[in-house]
């Protein structure tokens, strides 16, 4: 394999907390080392992890039907979401709970999807963060269409499409890259390669690096260490600026690892090779940022204690809110099927609300 050789992912922050030499492929803008930004990145990754562990616990106690954990992927998501500005719009899969946190989506609202009280949970326009999309790759086309809209509005905004290594095999992702390149749409394809698509390893999806495929469509690509929040932020900032400036789409592969199961219904012990999890535990995105912050003296122990307390409070708030959530009233099932009245919906709404004896369907 020569053409298909995987290059080492670009990184800025090593697992031991040291900063790498600045390279021309991925420069480190000095403002990324501002103490306030480092603290915000640390706080967001920690809070996102707390949302994740709380959601897993809530599923285990029967409060959620399912949870798809992003454990281990916090740097890829938090870094990329921090790169967005007020003109940009993100299109997530169902695993972007850390990105959702950065976009200000209340975790309690987000968990409605997994509890079964809603198929959505937030107002996309308020957060510039689309609803979670479960059908693999479908949202990547939405991102490209949104970006084509920004060209027509001359807004200067860009779209960012999140998807995983498995979704790259979907036709929609291929079509999205065709549409994006031929229209020069301002969109960033942000692929989190977390190693697994449920039980299928990456070599079931591709024989060449994902970046090589993307380059074939005619766009710049970058392969980064997805557990390095500074690399994720720097690469996505560069990509969004490239897209917003009219230079077209960019593809980023963030090499990371799904530390948890695919979902709470999955059992990775059936397919994960021994030692893999242990290796990736040494690559933890939060640990390495903590080491950097300690080394650079941008945070002391009291900061980490404070963040942990905030995370614990968040966990308690989520737990109480989810456990106390009432099931929605039956009649709400009929709302919002259409934006305008529809005879079949209204007929069924009436039949479901009437007792059986009066011609309804409910006993």
């Amino acid at each position, binding site marked *: 394999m020569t053409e298909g050789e995987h290059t080492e992912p670009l990184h800025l922050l090593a697992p031991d907390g040291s900063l790498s030499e600045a390279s021309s492929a991925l420069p480190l803008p000095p403002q990324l080392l501002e103490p306030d930004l480092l603290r915000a990145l640390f706080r967001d990754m920690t809070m996102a992890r707390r949302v994740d562990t709380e959601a897993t616990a809530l599923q285990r106690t029967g409060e959620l039907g399912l949870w798809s954990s992003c454990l281990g992927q916090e740097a890829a998501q938090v870094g990329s979401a921090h790169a967005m500005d007020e003109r940009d719009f993100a299109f997530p899969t169902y695993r972007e709970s850390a990105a959702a946190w950065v976009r200000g989506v209340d975790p309690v609202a987000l968990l409605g999807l997994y509890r079964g009280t809603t198929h959505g949970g937030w107002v996309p326009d308020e957060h510039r963060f689309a609803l979670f999309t479960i059908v693999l790759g479908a949202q990547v086309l939405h991102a490209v269409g949104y970006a084509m809209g920004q060209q027509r509005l001359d807004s200067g905004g860009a779209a960012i499409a999140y998807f995983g290594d498995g979704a790259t095999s979907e036709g929609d992702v291929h079509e999205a890259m065709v549409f994006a390149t031929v229209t020069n749409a301002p969109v960033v394809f942000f692929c989190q390669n977390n190693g697994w698509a449920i039980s299928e390893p990456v070599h079931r999806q591709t024989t060449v690096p994902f970046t090589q495929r993307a380059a074939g469509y005619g766009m710049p690509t970058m392969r980064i260490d997805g557990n390095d929040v500074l690399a994720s932020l720097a690469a996505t900032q560069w990509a969004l600026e490239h897209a917003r400036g009219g230079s077209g789409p960019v593809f980023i592969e963030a090499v990371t690892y799904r530390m948890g199961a695919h979902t709470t219904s999955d059992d990775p012990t059936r397919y994960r090779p021994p030692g893999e999890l242990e290796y990736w535990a040494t690559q933890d995105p939060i640990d390495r940022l903590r080491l950097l912050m300690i080394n650079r003296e941008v945070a002391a122990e009291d900061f980490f204690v404070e963040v942990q307390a905030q995370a614990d409070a968040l966990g308690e708030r989520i737990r109480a809110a989810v456990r106390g959530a009432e099931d929605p009233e039956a009649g709400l099932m009929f709302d919002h099927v259409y934006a305008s009245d529809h005879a*079949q919906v209204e007929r069924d709404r009436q039949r479901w609300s009437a007792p059986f004896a009066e011609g309804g369907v409910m006993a």
Partner: protein
Amino acid sequence: MSAAPMTMVGGLNAGLRASLDHDPRVLLMGEDIATLGGVFRVTDGLAKDFGDQRVFDTPLAESGILGTAIGLAMAGFRPVVEIQFDGFVFPAFDQIVTQLAKHHYRSAGHTPLPIVVRIPYGGGIGAVEHHSESPEAYFVHTPGLRVWTPSDANQAYLGIQAAIACPDPVIFLEPKRRYWDKAEVALGTLSADDAERMWSSRTLRTGSDITVVAYGPMVRTCTEAANALAELGVKATVIDLRSLSPLDLDPIFASVRQTGRCVVVHEAVETVGLGAEIAARVVEECFYSLEAPVQRIAGPHVPYPPSRFERHYLPSIDRVVAGVVQVMAG
């Protein structure tokens, strides 16, 4: 308002032009629709007059067309997409059914997707495989979609404007065998009330013996069958559904309570087709008025056949007449 004789293609073109004029958010997108004007020339001249940002050719990827249209709608546009032929909508079926139809519901009403999917449908033009399908039941079966089909040039002119003005996604099925039929088109602005009225069925003629329900390409067939039946002394009411979702069935129930007999005619396969739903509803609502079983005149349970068979496959005037005569004898 001025009236002009036009083909259905001309009526659609004029309706699209009116919508593009009326609302700057309206975009047309699809394969070969810009420079060529569409393989049926429905969008002829519109790219030239409205520019390549509003009327544009897409790559040849139907799921991509629907998926990017959804993104454009999320950005505030009102895309009207053309699927070149009925048989090519299926690569886009996933985006239509799992994304387009559900998004208003999923977003609790915050993000409507006002997208029109224009699809030339039905047979009768001697086409090759995948160019003569009648896929309406799939879409009518899907909550969140509206489905509409014109039967003549004037209906097409008005209907396409109503579909574009609608806040919901609309599957707009164009009966391609009627594309070149001419009718008087009443040109003019469609008011909101006019647009709302397009979502109802319309009674084309009233007769006391039997209620004939049709839509799209079969409306002309049934009107001509009704003329032939009149010569046989059978007086038929003919109702054009127009809107397949929602279904406006009250006028059909009212008519069947008068006539006591009903046939439903469509090209699509009879099994679980629109006729099955309409027959079931007529039996539920009009059981004690019925003089005979509701009859369906529709496609047999075979794939759309090679075109040399289609005169046997498609409901013809003779088949409609024969079916009605049979119901009258029942």
